Protein backbone atom coordinates (compact mmCIF):
# COMPACT_ATOMS: atom_id res chain seq x y z
CA UNK A 1 0.00 0.00 0.00
CA UNK A 2 2.62 2.50 1.15
CA UNK A 3 4.87 2.48 -1.93
CA UNK A 4 2.08 2.99 -4.41
CA UNK A 5 1.85 6.42 -6.08
CA UNK A 6 -0.84 8.67 -4.59
CA UNK A 7 -2.92 11.15 -6.54
CA UNK A 8 -2.59 14.79 -5.42
CA UNK A 9 -5.05 15.64 -2.66
CA UNK A 10 -7.53 18.51 -2.35
CA UNK A 11 -5.10 21.24 -1.32
CA UNK A 12 -3.06 20.82 -4.53
CA UNK A 13 -5.83 21.91 -6.89
CA UNK A 14 -7.29 25.36 -7.50
CA UNK A 15 -10.76 25.20 -6.00
CA UNK A 16 -13.76 25.26 -8.31
CA UNK A 17 -17.50 24.74 -7.89
CA UNK A 18 -17.28 21.13 -9.18
CA UNK A 19 -14.97 20.32 -6.24
CA UNK A 20 -17.28 22.02 -3.77
CA UNK A 21 -20.35 20.13 -4.99
CA UNK A 22 -18.42 16.86 -4.87
CA UNK A 23 -17.21 17.28 -1.29
CA UNK A 24 -20.62 18.61 -0.23
CA UNK A 25 -22.17 15.43 -1.62
CA UNK A 26 -19.88 13.32 0.54
CA UNK A 27 -20.22 15.45 3.69
CA UNK A 28 -24.01 15.69 3.51
CA UNK A 29 -24.42 12.01 2.63
CA UNK A 30 -22.16 10.66 5.35
CA UNK A 31 -23.45 13.28 7.80
CA UNK A 32 -27.01 12.14 7.24
CA UNK A 33 -25.96 8.50 7.49
CA UNK A 34 -24.29 9.06 10.86
CA UNK A 35 -26.54 11.71 12.45
CA UNK A 36 -29.77 11.70 10.45
CA UNK A 37 -30.40 7.97 10.64
CA UNK A 38 -29.76 7.93 14.40
CA UNK A 39 -32.29 10.73 14.93
CA UNK A 40 -34.71 9.07 12.52
CA UNK A 41 -34.56 5.80 14.48
CA UNK A 42 -34.96 7.73 17.74
CA UNK A 43 -38.10 9.36 16.30
CA UNK A 44 -39.53 6.02 15.13
CA UNK A 45 -38.62 4.29 18.40
CA UNK A 46 -40.27 7.07 20.41
CA UNK A 47 -43.37 6.90 18.23
CA UNK A 48 -43.56 3.13 18.75
CA UNK A 49 -42.90 3.39 22.51
CA UNK A 50 -45.80 5.68 23.33
CA UNK A 51 -46.97 9.20 24.05
CA UNK A 52 -44.45 9.91 26.82
CA UNK A 53 -41.35 8.95 24.82
CA UNK A 54 -42.66 10.82 21.77
CA UNK A 55 -43.37 13.84 23.96
CA UNK A 56 -39.73 14.01 25.01
CA UNK A 57 -38.56 13.74 21.40
CA UNK A 58 -41.08 16.37 20.32
CA UNK A 59 -39.98 18.75 23.06
CA UNK A 60 -36.29 18.41 22.17
CA UNK A 61 -37.00 18.66 18.43
CA UNK A 62 -39.08 21.83 18.98
CA UNK A 63 -36.31 23.56 20.96
CA UNK A 64 -33.92 26.00 19.29
CA UNK A 65 -30.96 23.53 19.24
CA UNK A 66 -33.38 20.86 17.98
CA UNK A 67 -34.48 23.12 15.16
CA UNK A 68 -30.87 23.90 14.25
CA UNK A 69 -30.14 20.16 13.94
CA UNK A 70 -33.30 19.47 11.95
CA UNK A 71 -32.79 22.44 9.63
CA UNK A 72 -29.20 21.27 9.14
CA UNK A 73 -30.37 17.77 8.28
CA UNK A 74 -32.99 19.03 5.84
CA UNK A 75 -30.35 21.21 4.18
CA UNK A 76 -28.09 18.13 3.99
CA UNK A 77 -30.95 16.17 2.41
CA UNK A 78 -31.79 18.76 -0.25
CA UNK A 79 -28.10 19.34 -1.01
CA UNK A 80 -27.43 15.60 -1.34
CA UNK A 81 -30.59 15.22 -3.44
CA UNK A 82 -29.58 17.99 -5.85
CA UNK A 83 -25.97 16.82 -6.22
CA UNK A 84 -27.32 13.25 -6.51
CA UNK A 85 -29.58 14.32 -9.38
CA UNK A 86 -26.52 15.97 -10.94
CA UNK A 87 -24.74 12.61 -10.63
CA UNK A 88 -27.57 10.89 -12.51
CA UNK A 89 -27.12 13.34 -15.39
CA UNK A 90 -23.33 12.82 -15.39
CA UNK A 91 -23.90 9.05 -15.25
CA UNK A 92 -25.60 9.09 -18.65
CA UNK A 93 -22.61 10.97 -20.06
CA UNK A 94 -24.21 14.42 -20.21
CA UNK A 95 -23.25 17.72 -18.61
CA UNK A 96 -19.46 17.49 -18.95
CA UNK A 97 -19.05 20.62 -21.10
CA UNK A 98 -17.08 23.06 -18.93
CA UNK A 99 -19.74 25.78 -18.87
CA UNK A 100 -22.64 23.39 -18.25
CA UNK A 101 -20.71 21.51 -15.60
CA UNK A 102 -19.78 24.70 -13.79
CA UNK A 103 -23.33 26.07 -13.99
CA UNK A 104 -24.91 22.99 -12.41
CA UNK A 105 -22.15 22.73 -9.81
CA UNK A 106 -23.22 26.18 -8.63
CA UNK A 107 -26.97 25.75 -9.18
CA UNK A 108 -27.32 22.39 -7.36
CA UNK A 109 -26.32 23.67 -3.87
CA UNK A 110 -28.11 27.00 -4.44
CA UNK A 111 -31.39 25.28 -5.38
CA UNK A 112 -30.92 23.08 -2.30
CA UNK A 113 -30.78 26.14 -0.04
CA UNK A 114 -33.91 27.56 -1.70
CA UNK A 115 -35.72 24.22 -1.17
CA UNK A 116 -34.62 24.14 2.49
CA UNK A 117 -35.91 27.67 3.08
CA UNK A 118 -39.17 26.91 1.25
CA UNK A 119 -39.72 23.70 3.24
CA UNK A 120 -39.23 25.38 6.61
CA UNK A 121 -41.28 28.41 5.60
CA UNK A 122 -44.11 26.00 4.78
CA UNK A 123 -43.72 24.03 8.05
CA UNK A 124 -43.37 27.06 10.34
CA UNK A 125 -45.94 29.32 8.69
CA UNK A 126 -48.78 26.87 8.02
Amino acid at each position, binding site marked *: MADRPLSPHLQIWKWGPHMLVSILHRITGDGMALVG*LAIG*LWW*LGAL*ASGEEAYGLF*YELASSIPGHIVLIGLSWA*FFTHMMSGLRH*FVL*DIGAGYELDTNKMWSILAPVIAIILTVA*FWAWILLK
Partner: protein
Amino acid sequence: MGNGTSIGRVRGLGSAREGAHHWLLQRFTAIGNLVLMLWLITSFALLPDLTYPTVREWLAQPLSAAAMALLLVSVFWHARLGLQVLIEDYVHEAGSKFALVVLLNLAAIAGAVFGVFCVVRIALTPLGGAA
Protein backbone atom coordinates in the same frame (compact mmCIF):
# COMPACT_ATOMS: atom_id res chain seq x y z
CA MET B 1 3.27 -11.45 -1.87
CA GLY B 2 3.27 -15.22 -1.99
CA ASN B 3 3.74 -17.40 -5.02
CA GLY B 4 0.02 -18.01 -5.59
CA THR B 5 -1.82 -17.99 -8.86
CA SER B 6 -1.87 -14.79 -10.89
CA ILE B 7 -5.44 -14.05 -9.75
CA GLY B 8 -4.48 -14.78 -6.15
CA ARG B 9 -1.71 -12.21 -6.30
CA VAL B 10 -4.04 -9.36 -7.27
CA ARG B 11 -7.15 -10.24 -5.29
CA GLY B 12 -8.03 -7.60 -2.73
CA LEU B 13 -5.60 -5.11 -4.21
CA GLY B 14 -7.97 -3.42 -6.57
CA SER B 15 -11.05 -4.22 -8.57
CA ALA B 16 -12.44 -7.53 -7.39
CA ARG B 17 -15.22 -7.22 -9.98
CA GLU B 18 -17.57 -5.94 -7.30
CA GLY B 19 -17.29 -2.27 -8.18
CA ALA B 20 -20.01 -2.23 -10.84
CA HIS B 21 -22.43 -4.04 -8.54
CA HIS B 22 -21.75 -1.56 -5.73
CA TRP B 23 -22.11 1.36 -8.14
CA LEU B 24 -25.42 0.06 -9.55
CA LEU B 25 -26.90 -0.63 -6.10
CA GLN B 26 -25.94 2.87 -5.02
CA ARG B 27 -28.02 4.20 -7.95
CA PHE B 28 -30.95 1.82 -7.45
CA THR B 29 -31.24 2.73 -3.77
CA ALA B 30 -30.74 6.42 -4.66
CA ILE B 31 -33.88 6.27 -6.82
CA GLY B 32 -35.73 4.55 -3.98
CA ASN B 33 -34.53 7.21 -1.54
CA LEU B 34 -35.54 10.03 -3.88
CA VAL B 35 -39.12 8.79 -4.32
CA LEU B 36 -39.66 7.74 -0.70
CA MET B 37 -37.97 10.75 0.93
CA LEU B 38 -40.09 13.09 -1.20
CA TRP B 39 -43.13 11.14 0.02
CA LEU B 40 -41.97 11.51 3.65
CA ILE B 41 -41.25 15.23 3.35
CA THR B 42 -44.55 15.88 1.57
CA SER B 43 -46.35 13.91 4.29
CA PHE B 44 -44.70 15.98 7.03
CA ALA B 45 -45.68 19.16 5.19
CA LEU B 46 -49.29 18.08 4.67
CA LEU B 47 -50.05 16.64 8.13
CA PRO B 48 -52.07 19.15 10.20
CA ASP B 49 -49.47 18.89 13.00
CA LEU B 50 -46.69 16.54 14.09
CA THR B 51 -48.04 15.59 17.52
CA TYR B 52 -48.23 12.01 18.77
CA PRO B 53 -51.84 11.10 17.85
CA THR B 54 -51.60 12.67 14.37
CA VAL B 55 -48.28 11.09 13.39
CA ARG B 56 -49.17 7.75 14.95
CA GLU B 57 -52.51 7.53 13.15
CA TRP B 58 -50.87 8.52 9.86
CA LEU B 59 -48.05 5.95 10.13
CA ALA B 60 -50.47 3.18 11.18
CA GLN B 61 -52.16 3.33 7.77
CA PRO B 62 -51.06 0.41 5.55
CA LEU B 63 -49.73 2.64 2.75
CA SER B 64 -47.69 4.85 5.09
CA ALA B 65 -46.34 1.88 7.02
CA ALA B 66 -45.32 0.06 3.83
CA ALA B 67 -43.69 3.17 2.38
CA MET B 68 -41.82 3.80 5.63
CA ALA B 69 -40.57 0.19 5.78
CA LEU B 70 -39.37 0.46 2.17
CA LEU B 71 -37.70 3.81 2.92
CA LEU B 72 -35.86 2.28 5.86
CA VAL B 73 -34.50 -0.58 3.75
CA SER B 74 -33.54 1.71 0.85
CA VAL B 75 -31.96 4.43 2.96
CA PHE B 76 -29.99 2.10 5.25
CA TRP B 77 -28.73 0.17 2.23
CA HIS B 78 -27.69 3.41 0.53
CA ALA B 79 -26.02 4.66 3.72
CA ARG B 80 -24.15 1.37 4.08
CA LEU B 81 -22.78 1.69 0.55
CA GLY B 82 -21.85 5.36 1.06
CA LEU B 83 -20.11 4.84 4.39
CA GLN B 84 -18.26 1.85 2.93
CA VAL B 85 -16.74 4.15 0.31
CA LEU B 86 -15.81 6.61 3.05
CA ILE B 87 -14.01 3.84 4.95
CA GLU B 88 -12.29 2.54 1.82
CA ASP B 89 -11.08 6.03 0.93
CA TYR B 90 -9.73 7.11 4.30
CA VAL B 91 -8.80 3.95 6.25
CA HIS B 92 -5.70 2.48 4.66
CA GLU B 93 -4.77 -0.20 7.15
CA ALA B 94 -6.26 -3.51 6.00
CA GLY B 95 -7.19 -4.80 9.46
CA SER B 96 -8.92 -1.59 10.57
CA LYS B 97 -10.67 -1.32 7.24
CA PHE B 98 -12.03 -4.87 7.54
CA ALA B 99 -13.16 -4.30 11.15
CA LEU B 100 -14.93 -1.05 10.27
CA VAL B 101 -16.71 -2.57 7.28
CA VAL B 102 -17.89 -5.47 9.47
CA LEU B 103 -19.11 -3.00 12.10
CA LEU B 104 -20.81 -0.92 9.41
CA ASN B 105 -22.66 -3.96 8.04
CA LEU B 106 -23.87 -4.95 11.50
CA ALA B 107 -24.96 -1.40 12.37
CA ALA B 108 -26.75 -0.85 9.05
CA ILE B 109 -28.68 -4.12 9.28
CA ALA B 110 -29.47 -3.57 12.97
CA GLY B 111 -30.71 -0.04 12.27
CA ALA B 112 -32.96 -1.11 9.42
CA VAL B 113 -34.38 -4.03 11.42
CA PHE B 114 -35.07 -1.83 14.45
CA GLY B 115 -36.79 0.76 12.26
CA VAL B 116 -38.96 -1.77 10.43
CA PHE B 117 -39.86 -3.41 13.76
CA CYS B 118 -41.00 -0.02 15.11
CA VAL B 119 -43.15 0.53 12.01
CA VAL B 120 -44.74 -2.92 12.37
CA ARG B 121 -45.49 -2.26 16.01
CA ILE B 122 -47.02 1.13 15.23
CA ALA B 123 -49.09 -0.34 12.41
CA LEU B 124 -50.38 -3.29 14.44
CA THR B 125 -50.98 -1.63 17.82
CA PRO B 126 -54.30 0.21 17.96
CA LEU B 127 -54.12 3.76 19.36
CA GLY B 128 -55.25 3.82 22.98
CA GLY B 129 -55.17 0.01 23.13
CA ALA B 130 -52.79 -2.07 25.23
CA ALA B 131 -49.29 -1.15 24.11
